[in-house]
C-alpha cells in the first residue's frame, strides 16, 4: 500500500516568514527549478494532471472557448468521458472512490494478477491518478534543534548546496519569529548566527543517514548527502564532539 509522502507540511509559517522568504527569492525567474521549500507550489505538470481534459483540451484556456457551442462542449465531455472510461478510465476523480481505497484496490489487483497486458498500464494510470495531486520534487525532512521542543520541516530539494541550507536553517531557528516567543532569546537575536560545520558558532548541524548513524553535515558531496539523509539535528558543539568521536 502506498504510504504517500507528507505533502502540504509547511503550514507552520506566519505571513511574515512568507514575506521574508519571497524577498529572498525575488530574483529567481518564474519557472526556476529552485522552488522555495518553505511555501507550497504546485508545478504545472502536477496540476494539469488533476484536471479532466475536455475533447478540445487546449481550448479551455484560449479565447476560442466562447465560440464553442454548449452542445458541442457537452458532446465533448461525453466523448471524452466515454473514451476515457473505455481506454484507461482516466477521468480524474471518477468513479468517486477515495485515494486510500483506490490504492488498496490497485494493490489487490497486483496481487491477483495473471498475464494481464493491461494491468501495468492500469497500475500506472492509477498511480498517476493518485499521485496527480502530490507535490512534485519535494523532499521534506525533519529538523530539530536542541533546546527547542518543536521541530520543523525543510525541503532539501529547494537547496543545491550546503550554504543555502545553512542559511535557511539559520533563518528558521535563529531568527525570532515576530510576535511569537517560541525561541530561546539568549543572545542569538543580535547576530544572525550561522550553523557552521566547524562549530565555531557554538552550534553544529548533524544528520541521521539511512543506516541510522548520525553524521556531521558537510563531509560528503551534496548529492550523496541528499541520497542518504533522513533527518537533521542542530546540536551544541560540545555534544557533537562527543558523538563524532563515537562515529569515528
Amino acid at each position, binding site marked *: 500500500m502506498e504510504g504517500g509522502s507528507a505533502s*502540504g507540511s509547511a503550514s507552520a509559517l506566519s505571513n511574515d516568514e512568507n514575506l521574508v522568504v519571497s524577498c529572498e527569492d525575488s530574483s529567481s525567474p518564474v519557472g526556476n527549478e529552485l522552488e522555495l521549500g518553505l511555501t507550497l507550489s504546485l508545478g504545472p505538470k502536477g496540476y494539469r494532471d488533476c484536471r479532466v481534459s*475536455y475533447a478540445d483540451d487546449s481550448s479551455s484556456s484560449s479565447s476560442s472557448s466562447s465560440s464553442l457551442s454548449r452542445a458541442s462542449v457537452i458532446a465533448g465531455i461525453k466523448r471524452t468521458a466515454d473514451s476515457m472510461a473505455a481506454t484507461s*478510465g482516466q477521468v480524474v476523480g471518477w468513479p468517486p472512490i477515495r485515494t486510500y481505497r483506490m490504492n488498496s484496490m490497485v494493490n489487490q489487483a497486483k496481487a491477483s494478477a495473471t498475464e494481464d497486458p493491461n494491468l501495468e498500464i492500469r497500475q500506472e494510470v492509477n498511480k498517476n491518478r493518485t499521485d496527480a495531486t502530490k507535490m512534485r520534487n519535494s523532499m521534506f525532512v525533519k529538523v530539530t534543534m536542541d533546546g527547542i521542543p518543536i521541530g520543523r520541516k525543510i525541503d532539501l530539494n529547494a537547496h543545491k548546496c550546503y550554504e543555502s541550507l545553512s542559511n535557511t536553517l539559520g533563518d528558521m531557528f535563529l531568527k525570532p519569529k515576530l510576535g511569537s516567543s517560541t525561541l530561546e532569546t539568549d543572545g542569538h537575536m543580535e547576530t544572525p548566527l550561522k550553523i557552521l560545520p566547524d562549530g565555531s558558532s557554538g552550534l553544529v548541524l548533524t544528520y541521521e543517514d539511512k543506516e541510522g548513524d548520525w553524521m556531521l553535515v558537510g563531509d560528503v558531496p551534496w548529492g550523496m548527502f541528499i541520497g542518504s539523509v533522513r533527518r537533521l539535528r542542530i546540536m551544541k558543539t560540545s555534544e557533537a564532539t562527543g558523538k563524532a568521536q563515537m562515529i569515528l
Partner: protein
Amino acid sequence: MGLRLPSKVLEHILSFIDSNEDRNSVSLVCKSWFETERKTRKRVFVGNCYAVSPAAVAKRFPEVRSLTLKGKPHFADYNLVPDGWGGYAWPWIEAMAAKCPSLEEIRLKRMVVTDECLEKIAASFKDFKVLVLTSCEGFSTDGIAAIAATCRNLRVLELRECIVEDLGGDWLSYFPESSTSLVSLDFSCLDSEVKISDLERLVSRCPNLSSLKLNPAVTLDGLVSLLRRAPQLTELGTGSFAAQLKPEAFSKLSEAFSNCKQLQSLSGLWDVLPEYLPALYSVCPGLTSLNLSYATVRMPDLVELLRRCSKLQKLWVMDLIEDKGLEAVASYCKELRELRVFPSAPDLDEANIPLTEQGLVFVSKGCRKLESVLYFCVQFTNAALLTIARKRPNLKCFRLCVIEPFAPDYKTNEPLDKGFKAIAEGCKDLRRLSVSGLLSDKAFKYIGKHAKKVRMLSIAFAGDSDLMLHHLLSGCESLKKLEIRDCPFGDTALLEHAAKLETMRSLWMSSCFVSFGACKLLSQKMPRLNVEVIDEHPPETRPESSPVERIYIYRTVAGPRMDTPEFVWTIHKNPEIGVSHLAIK
C-alpha cells in the same frame, strides 16, 4: 424590563442542552443568554475551517473541551482539489493553545496537520484525551510519537485513512509504561510494522481498551496474541489475514475469537483467505458492524459468513457479493440500517461482476430498517429506483454511483429522471443524496421541489442547462452543501440565486461553465461569501466569459483567507483591486 433569569440558573439549564443547533438558538435570544451560553459550551463544531477565524472561536468559547473541524471540500477525497489548497490545522491549534488550554479533544477531517501541530498539541493541553484525524495529511509517525509520549491521559488515538509519512514503527514504543488510559487505538492506515511485543504490553496494561484497529503489517499470530490479552474488545480491525494455512494456526485463531464475547464491530481483513473465515463464525451472531470492503472474499464464502450475522446493522462490502449475496443479506440481516457496496476492480472495462440494480432492490425489500445506502453499480433502471423509493421511504442517505457517466436506464434508454423523482418524493426524510446516470433538467426540478430536508447534494455529469442549477437553488430548502462536477451550467442561475448561497455552508463547482465575470460579480454582490477561483491560469488573462476550472464558494465571517496558494484566486470585494492571491483589506 421583564423577568430576568439569574445566570447561574440559566447555566444550570443549559448544562442539559448538548445539541449545538439548540445552543446556537439559545445564543440568539439576548445578550446575556449569549454570554452565558458561550461560557458554558463544551463542544464546538466548525464545519468549514475558513468560515470563522480561530481567534474568534477561541475567544468566544473559553471553556471548550472538544473541537471538531473540517477543512477541504468533500471532493478533495477524489483528487479534485489540488495539493496545497489549504485547510491548515496549525492556526487553530495555535489559537486554542493560547486561549483554551483545557481543551481535551480534537477531531479533524480533511485538514493538513503537520508534526509541528501534533507536537504543539502534546505540549499545550495538559489533559488531552482524544485525537481523531480523518483523511488528514502532512504529518509523519514522529508527530504521533509525540502525542503518545506526552499525553498522559490519552484515551483515543485514531488515524482514519490518513496519508502519513511513515518513518517506521517506533512511534508505538513511545507510549510510556505508565500509560494505561487508552480506550481506542486505530493505526490501520500506517504501513510500517510495529514491534508486536510493544503492542502486546500496551494492550495488556490498558484495561479499558475497547477499540483496536491494526494495520496490515500485523500478522495473524500477532492478532491471536493481542486478542488473548484483550478479550474485552468491542471493536476490532484485524491486520493481514493471510498466512500459511496450518491447522494449529486456524484453531488458535478460532479460539481467540470465541473468547471475545463482546465483539460488535469487525473490520480490516485485508488479504483474507476464505479458509480462515470460519474462525470468525463464533463472533458473527453478536456483530452489528462488519466491514468487508477490503476483503476479496467471493460469493459462497461471503454468504456463509453473512447468514450468521443476524444482528448486523452496518455492512460494507465489495461488489464481489453479487446480486445473489445481497439477496441472502436481505433474508438474514433483518436489522440492517446501512449498506455500502464498493467496486472491486479499479477499471471499468473489467466490470463483469454480476452485481446489478437487482441487488439493491433485494435489500430494499428485505431490510425494513435500511436508511443509508452507498451503491456503486455499472448501470441502473428507473424501475429499480421506483421500487426502492416505494419500499424504503425511511431512507435518510441515498448515494448511487452509476459508474458509467451519462448511462441511461439500460432497459428503456430513458434518463433516470423518473427514478430520482420517486426517491426525492418518496423519501421524505432524505438528508443526503448523490445522483448519477443520465439526468435531464427535469430530474432537478423534482429534486428541488421535493427534497425538502436534503442537506448535502452531489452531482456529476448531469443536466442540460442552467435550469438545473436554477431548480436546485430555488428549491431544496435545507440545502447546506452542494457539489457539482462536469455539468453544463453556470452564470445565470448562480447570480440569480446568490442570496441562497449565504444560507449554505458551501458550493463546489468544477468543470462547469461558470465564467470569471460571474465570479467577480458574485463576489462583489455578496460580502459574506468567499468566492475562490481555483485555476492554473490567472483568470484576468482570459476573456471574462471564459469558464474557470473550479470554484469554491462558502459563507464566512472571517473574510478572505490569507493562506491561499498561487493557483487559488480570491476575488476582492473592492472592484478596483480585482483579483489577488492575498486579499489585502
